[in-house]
């Protein structure tokens, strides 16, 4: 009996050590929960919450690749755009199939499929390059894809695809409105939560160590036995999946249309960079904090001083990035070292 009791205690201690590795998720999920509750209960706040969830999700998705490897992918918006197309294709092809809500999952699947294809293609070409060369190759692929769609007139060419009618036909008007104004935003928040979970699993695992080595000194990493190409590609593909899911939901299903000049826009990549750098690249909580600050400031500045928001926001971003190059969470992490908050901040 006594033996049983002590082994139970051992088991408890061991699992507590395992669980304690995931404590840094607590502040992230707490922020998401507050976001959801405020949006759900306070009238008129849901759209703002959706915007913030969008930036948090994008920041976290982008952070998995950029934050961990240090490779700056300026063409990241390609994944978001392809995700949007995946959803558009899923709905326009299958809306009469009688699969009900299943067509949204088909759309998501197509989004993941397209982003995987493009990620592997880009990995083959661009991931062998470094620094500015990598960034420029990614921009080139993004622009190339846009002109390919417009030039060959596939997927609606430059006219894009509009699928509101198809959605109404498949689900009925009421459900479609519900879907595009509530469920889609909730789904984006869930993607953000999944992205956080993947981030911490990566950081705590073998791949996290490999990617840290790649970020700090890729050649030394190879000599240490790290198959750098393999780990970079995994992070790239996973980051692409998450970006494509955000695109499929927040752009595809929410707006119910897709036009090439609206989705293949580098501006959104720059927003990702700002979100991640504000919060702290390579940290878990950083993209959440960055997403909230960026989303809120963008929203309020647009209300208070419409048209001037970029003019005001740009210098603020520059000041923050110069003053805290490791981001807000990077700074906080350093301050929290040795205190009891240490295990919650990552």
């Amino acid at each position: 009996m006594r033996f049983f009791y002590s082994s139970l205690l051992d088991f408890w201690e061991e699992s507590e050590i395992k669980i304690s590795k995931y404590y840094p998720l607590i502040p992230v999920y707490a922020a998401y929960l507050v976001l959801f509750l405020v949006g759900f209960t306070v009238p008129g706040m849901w759209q703002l919450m959706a915007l913030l969830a969008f930036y948090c999700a994008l920041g976290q998705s982008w952070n998995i690749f950029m934050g961990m490897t240090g490779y700056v992918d300026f063409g990241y918006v390609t994944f978001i755009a392809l995700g949007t197309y995946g959803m558009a294709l899923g709905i326009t092809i299958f809306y009469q199939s009688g699969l009900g809500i299943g067509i949204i999952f088909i759309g998501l699947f197509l989004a993941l499929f397209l982003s995987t294809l493009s990620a592997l293609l880009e990995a083959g070409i661009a991931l062998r390059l470094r620094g500015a060369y990598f960034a420029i190759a990614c921009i080139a692929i993004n622009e190339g894809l846009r002109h390919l769609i417009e030039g060959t007139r596939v997927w609606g060419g430059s006219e894009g695809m509009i699928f509101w009618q198809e959605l109404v036909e498949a689900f009925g008007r009421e459900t479609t409105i519900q879907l595009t104004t509530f469920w889609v935003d909730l789904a984006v928040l869930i993607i953000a939560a999944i992205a956080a979970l993947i981030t911490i699993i990566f950081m705590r695992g073998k791949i996290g160590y490999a990617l840290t080595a790649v970020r700090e000194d890729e050649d030394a990493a190879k000599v240490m036995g790290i198959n750098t190409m393999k780990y970079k590609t995994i992070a790239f593909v996973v980051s692409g999946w998450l970006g494509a899911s955000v695109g499929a939901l927040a752009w595809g299903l929410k707006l119910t249309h897709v036009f090439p000049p609206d989705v293949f826009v580098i501006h959104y990549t720059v927003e990702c960079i700002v979100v991640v750098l504000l919060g702290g690249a390579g940290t878990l909580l950083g993209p959440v904090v960055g997403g909230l600050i960026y989303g809120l400031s963008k929203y309020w500045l647009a209300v208070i001083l419409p048209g001037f928001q970029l003019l005001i926001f740009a210098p603020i971003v520059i000041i923050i990035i110069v003053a805290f190059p490791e981001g807000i969470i990077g700074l906080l992490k350093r301050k929290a070292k040795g205190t009891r908050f240490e295990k919650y901040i990552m």
Partner: protein
Amino acid sequence: MTLLKLENITKRFGGLIAVDDISLEIETGELIGIVGPNGSGKTTLYNVISGVYPPEEGRVIFEGRNITKLPAHRRAPMGIGRTFQIPRPFSSATVRENVAIGALFGTLSGKVSVDESLAIADHYLDLIGLQAQKDKTAGGLTPTDKKLMEISRALAMKPKLLLMDEAMAGMHPKDLDDMVNFLKKVAEEENIAIVAMVEHIMRAVTGFADRVMVMHRGAKLIDAPTAEALSDPRVVDVYLGRPSEVKHVEG
């Protein structure tokens, strides 16, 4: 048993011949010094052995297997560890994590878990005397501590062959003697062949190596037991220019 065999290795960079027709055999557990002035091709030779780039001519054979074309990340787990002339820590990671990376990816089985690798890291940091620094970020260490960290990182890879690039340069003579003793002890206990590359600190070579290869302008000048190699007139010539000054320096 022959651990590493280099057969007529030649490496060129454009018109420059960095390594010129070098052959070398290293036995299991052997301690070897590679000596040569700056620019004599020592680091290039290391890069060819560890797989940073392939040689233009010749073969690299490790434990009987031709690894000339094998990429670096596949050579390391076979048992080829190395340190760098200018330490290359993974700066933002802690010292402990740096050493753990060696254990995680550099061992042959490939089945070391993250927790196990951290335990291995603790072991080697204890051994080399860096345990007090283990939670610091590696970028913040002193240059000497960075070298020690690199050595523990390489040892955590459980190498059969350890290539050390000027690991002892810039050390205080007392620390240097400690380091030589430490390396000899580890090499014997874990049966590691160590190749130490040295530019001019002969104290490190004489105390450490059983055998010395002297390189000059990419080519092998001599490969002989330490005392014999260092007193060879050609070697003296390369280093000092005039044979008459030899006795003065060595005494």
